[in-house]
């Protein structure tokens, strides 16, 4: 598992400080392995509609801050809490019945399966078959080499920060950065292909609607190998509740060269704030060093991960600490 470019001593310090702030003793205990991943079993329903919450000076709903998914990481796309099938290690086959785990991220079709064409299903199965035994370079997920997680995988990979500016929404992910343009510029020429694709958005009430093209399609959706092609067109709807505590990422994914029909992905997320304890996964922040007497403030440190200068590289190059 990747840890990112900074040392971890500040995280410990911050966690302690946050626990004190939250006035709780429970935080002092070391969480069990894997407990850093949220484990909600259901998806909170949020309807598209009016935004009644805070607004920024430019009129955008104010959704700035720190967010992360509430279900699971990117191990498994259609059985998010089921682990990676074939895992020979401690995360072997799930011990609970399927009905006791969170639903598939495929919310349409109703069976929760990605509607692959037969050849594409075979490609996905091939990747999954070799995931734990990557006998060729192509079976190593690009993210493990610090490639951006891309669209939509970034929403299941660590927590992230949203910053908003007139004309823009920025997603600062753990691996990669995404700029949503709200200014109506045309998309880039179609042969420019990008890890984070090219995004044009607009606000409709409580919903950020984003048209996504120019995806280089190299980042698999999950370790289970789901994919689309460079022809993919994604329409994203980020539906926020008005108290600003949750949103659902609902994306319609269309690619006639890979799927038999358009399908919809749903990834629930929640806000993390000062009351939450930094956990090294969903919420990787520090308390700002404030002059005495100021309110506590959370800030994000640089998150740099490139082959051999990021998480692995800092150890390889600088030596383990």
């Amino acid at each position: 598992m990747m840890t990112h470019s900074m040392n971890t001593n500040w995280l410990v310090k911050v966690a302690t400080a946050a626990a004190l702030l939250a006035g709780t003793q429970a935080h002092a205990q070391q969480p069990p392995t894997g407990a850093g991943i949220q484990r909600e079993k259901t998806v909170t329903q949020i309807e598209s509609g009016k935004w009644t919450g805070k607004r920024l000076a430019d009129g955008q709903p104010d959704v700035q801050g720190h967010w992360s998914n509430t279900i699971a990481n990117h191990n498994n796309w259609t059985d998010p809490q089921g682990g990676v099938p074939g895992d020979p290690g401690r995360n072997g086959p799930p011990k609970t019945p399927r009905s006791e785990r969170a639903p598939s991220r495929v919310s349409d079709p109703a069976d929760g399966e990605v509607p692959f064409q037969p050849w594409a299903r075979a490609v996905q199965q091939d990747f999954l078959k070799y995931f734990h035994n990557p006998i060729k370079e192509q079976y190593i997920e690009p993210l493990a080499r610090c490639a951006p997680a891309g669209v939509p995988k970034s929403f299941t990979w660590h927590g992230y920060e949203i910053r908003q500016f007139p004309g823009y929404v920025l997603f600062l992910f753990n691996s990669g950065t995404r700029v949503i343009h709200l200014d109506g510029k045309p998309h880039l020429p179609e042969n420019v292909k990008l890890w984070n694709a090219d995004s044009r958005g607009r606000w409709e009430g409580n919903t950020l609607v984003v048209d996504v093209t120019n995806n280089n399609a190299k980042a698999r959706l999950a370790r289970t190998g789901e994919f689309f092609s460079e022809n993919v067109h994604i329409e994203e709807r980020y539906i926020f509740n008005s108290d600003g505590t949750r949103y659902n990422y609902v994306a319609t994914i269309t690619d006639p060269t890979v799927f038999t029909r358009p399908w919809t992905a749903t990834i629930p997320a929640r806000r993390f704030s000062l009351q939450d304890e930094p956990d090294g996964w969903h919420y990787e922040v520090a308390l700002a060093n404030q002059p005495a007497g100021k309110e506590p403030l959370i800030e994000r440190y640089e998150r740099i991960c490139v082959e051999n200068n990021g998480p692995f590289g800092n150890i390889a190059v600088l030596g383990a600490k």
Partner: protein
Amino acid sequence: MHSTRKGRVLAVLMGGLLAASLATAAPKIPRLKSGKPDFSGIWETTSAAEYDLEPHSGRVDAPPSAGAIDGKYIPYLPAALEQKKKNFAARGTDDPRLKCWTLGTPRGIYYREPFQIFQRDRDLTLLFQFGHSVRTIHTNGTLHPEVTDNEFYLGDSRGHWEGDTLVVDVTDFNTETWLDRAGNFHGPKLHVVERWKFLDENTIEYQATLEDPDVFSRPWTLTVLLNRHREKDFQLIENYCFTLGYDKFYPVPQQGTTE
């Protein structure tokens, strides 16, 4: 004839007055609601500083330049100067840029690819096209972290305003970055003070003063101008060039390619 001459004199006088008033008036620059200068936009230098900060003749991997340093040359300590010469000799292989590593502060600012500034009252977010890394300059009165060994690529940046100049104190660096393609470098004690100032609405004067007691005999200052990109529909295009080395392993699957 007489009246024409009078007119000319008047025109010259008026022209002079106009020029004088232009010279004294502060440049009209974009501002946030708070009144602080608003550096939001996409910027890139036309300076050749990133090839080599010091004066140099043209060579196969750099155009000639009179340099970008106040005092012409970097005041290296003797041992550091030897290291710089080694770096220069090995620049064709050892420059972190060739691996597409994050260029650091200040190199990322004068590298010849655009970067975008997004600005709020509390901070400036700098997004670099090259490597697509993100630097935050905090302008909310917060201090450097008490923990000082995070070893950031871009440093920890705390800014404040001196009139219309943004002054940024940057500390806590790692040693994985160079200052240019010529092997100019720094150590872990690097401390950078930047001064960002509009010359006009489309031009920023960027100054960086670097000190490092293990590498330089005294602080020294570089200056470059940053120009606003104003092309129609111009945008940053992410350049995760560190992925290019393994790009070939990830062809997008096509029908008929299954084994």
